[in-house]
């Protein structure tokens, strides 16, 4: 297999995904088959001599083919730990429970050896820092060719050809020349394109982008996100986007999962979420996003305090101590994470009022000192 079709259309492996999920090309179309299904995923760390840390508790979501799901949260919210659990990249000391299925195959509990078959082949990951993800002593082209040969039985020449095709696919300028360049000769945006090329080398069904554009300039970020969207339309892959930036999710995701203190607090299709925010934490995040329509010298809405210590027992809602809407119930009883409206899930005892019309007069309490 040389993957000759990749530049022109879906590659061989992607073609099977595309065939299985009809109508994935246009975003408003029907949902494709589920590629990734995460059910009740929990991750615990037990650092030596210290209390157990519950990094992720009861996380559930699914990613259909051809769609992008964004997991949004601050540092320490468990978003990265959960994505590493999917890839089996956590240290052995981490206790992972729950279920992660990739196109029907359970990944949790697989031996490292069988996991390696999926990793890179069916699921690929791109990281925040492309400079540190590439081998600095090796030319970038051979790094891609090596990734190709690790999963496919092809000759060296064919792997080289495939690498150059992949460079074309990710729109690196002068691909044949880039093949023989070292990572330090490339700019940050070009390095991230190389990482994407490597991730796509086996036509994965799922691409995990963990803060893939955070370290890049806004203009480069826009170009990389556009590239990923184009590749998704072309190859039909599912994208799991891990980010701290709700603005990025607003522009490039189909569905958003908001995490706080290791738990999911709200989950909804992107339009529904931004139109009808129900969970006060999501609303606070939304209020703090840097925006171009913000007037100068007006205070930003802020929430005081910090996320809770994840080693302590949390009886109630993890956001309760910082929440302007919190009542007595919030401190001792955890609100269930439930589907309150088709597709819109949240965990809150006193949610913000629903709907754009209801919001005007009554969304005051969530915006402490804002007006």
């Amino acid at each position, binding site marked *: 297999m040389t993957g000759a079709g990749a530049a022109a259309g879906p590659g061989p492996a992607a073609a099977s995904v595309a065939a299985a999920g009809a109508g994935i090309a246009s975003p408003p179309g029907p949902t494709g088959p589920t590629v990734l299904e995460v059910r009740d995923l929990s991750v615990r760390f037990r650092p030596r001599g210290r209390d157990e840390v519950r990094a992720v508790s009861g996380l559930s979501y699914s990613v259909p083919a051809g769609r992008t799901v964004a997991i949004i949260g601050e540092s320490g919210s468990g978003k990265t730990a959960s994505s590493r659990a999917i890839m089996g990249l956590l240290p052995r000391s981490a206790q992972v429970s729950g279920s992660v299925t990739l196109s029907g195959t359970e990944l949790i509990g697989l031996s490292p050896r069988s996991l390696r078959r999926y990793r890179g082949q069916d699921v690929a990951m791109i990281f925040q820092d492309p400079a540190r993800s590439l081998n600095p002593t090796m030319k970038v082209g051979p790094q891609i060719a090596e990734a190709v040969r690790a999963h496919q039985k092809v000759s060296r020449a064919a792997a080289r050809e495939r690498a150059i095709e992949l460079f074309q696919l990710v729109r690196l300028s002068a691909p044949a020349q880039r093949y023989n360049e070292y990572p330090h000769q490339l700019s940050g945006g070009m390095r991230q394109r190389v990482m994407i090329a490597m991730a796509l080398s086996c036509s994965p069904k799922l691409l995990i982008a963990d803060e893939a554009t955070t370290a890049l300039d806004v203009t480069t970020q*826009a*170009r990389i996100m556009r590239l990923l969207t184009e590749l998704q339309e072309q190859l039909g892959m599912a994208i799991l986007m891990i980010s701290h930036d709700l603005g990025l*999710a607003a*522009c490039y995701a189909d569905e958003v999962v908001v995490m706080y203190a290791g738990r999911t607090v709200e989950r909804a299709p992107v339009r529904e979420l931004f139109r009808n925010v129900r969970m006060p934490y999501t609303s606070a995040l939304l209020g703090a996003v840097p*925006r*171009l*329509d913000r007037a*100068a*010298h007006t*205070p930003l809405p802020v929430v005081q305090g910090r996320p809770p210590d994840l080693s302590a027992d949390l009886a109630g809602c993890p956001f309760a101590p910082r929440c302007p809407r919190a009542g007595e119930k919030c401190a001792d009883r955890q609100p269930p994470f439930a589907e309150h409206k088709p597709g819109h899930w949240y965990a809150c005892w006193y949610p913000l009022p629903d709907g754009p019309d209801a919001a005007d007069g009554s969304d005051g309490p969530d915006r402490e000192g804002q007006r």
Partner: protein
Amino acid sequence: MTEPLLQARELVQEFAVRGQGGMRGGVVQAVSGVSLDIAGGETLSVVGETGSGKSTLARSIMQAPPPKSGEVVFQGTSMRALRGAALRDARRSMQMIFQDPYTSLDPLWSVTRIVAEPLLAAGMRDRGKRRQRVGELLEQVGLDISVHGPRRARELSGGQCQRVAIARALAASPALIIADEAVSSLDVLVQAQVLNLLEGLRTSLGLSYLFIAHDLALVKQVSDRVAVMYLGRLCEIGPADEVYGNPRHPYTVELLDAVPRVEQAELGKRPAGELPAGALSTAGDPASPVSPPSGCRFRTRCPRAQSRCAAETPALTVPAGTGPAGTGPAGTGPGHLVACHFPLTDVPDVTGHEITIKESGRSAS
């Protein structure tokens, strides 16, 4: 008109690099003839991509290292001729906050010692007085000396570290604070807290700020004026409302287009063809500062470039074809200067997206 707090005139900074490992050697033209003023109590933001020379500009202003040519006049004193103790004295009123809060604080020092050091350097010998002042400074940034004072940087969160860095900067009673990407690496909620803190200090202490950032959205809330920089030169400078609401340089428009906007969630996810930066998807990397393009340095990326752009360097002026400064919807407001041969004339107000979000009643304006 009163004398500005800071005047930078035709600053030029260059660094010689040796060629190695396939890289060509030469002279990096990091800053090429940049002039700007900052008035007392004013916030100027300098925005540009990596490699635009914005951090080098800030350091040239600090005289660390001094620029190759050009002059910085700060509080009426030219800093060019100053050396040694005189330079240190002049520089004391100009303090800097950096991007990475962890690496800009000494990991072995307690918070109290970090904040007390500038006081000691300024000659405050009395221990008790010093401690009292450190307490006041920490309180100003929302920390408590009895709780946070004895801690080391690693025991603090990113936001707290940045607060300590701000307290350290305030210890020298500066008139100008240069914040080089000071909030870029913080989580949004913490970012909002720190930006509010800086805003509060501006009003209570009458500070001026020079904000360095790569994201126009991030500095919108704090800026009085904005300068856009590309490959060592200013593209556009003017009052914030003008630059955001009436951008005239193609690069400013590209930067504005690239900002992901929460208000776009109203439209749902768009197909790739409708996303910005399409025409530039391959040609988008900045040219090398070692051999910058002739004429206008942005021309290799510019959709409006013509032969004149390669031949002539555009000067930073009131754009041609407009009336006297401050007139007409097609003109530019006072103090709005653009370096472009073919400035945009009819630009839709990119901040106009607020209309859609306001209808939804969830605007955080």
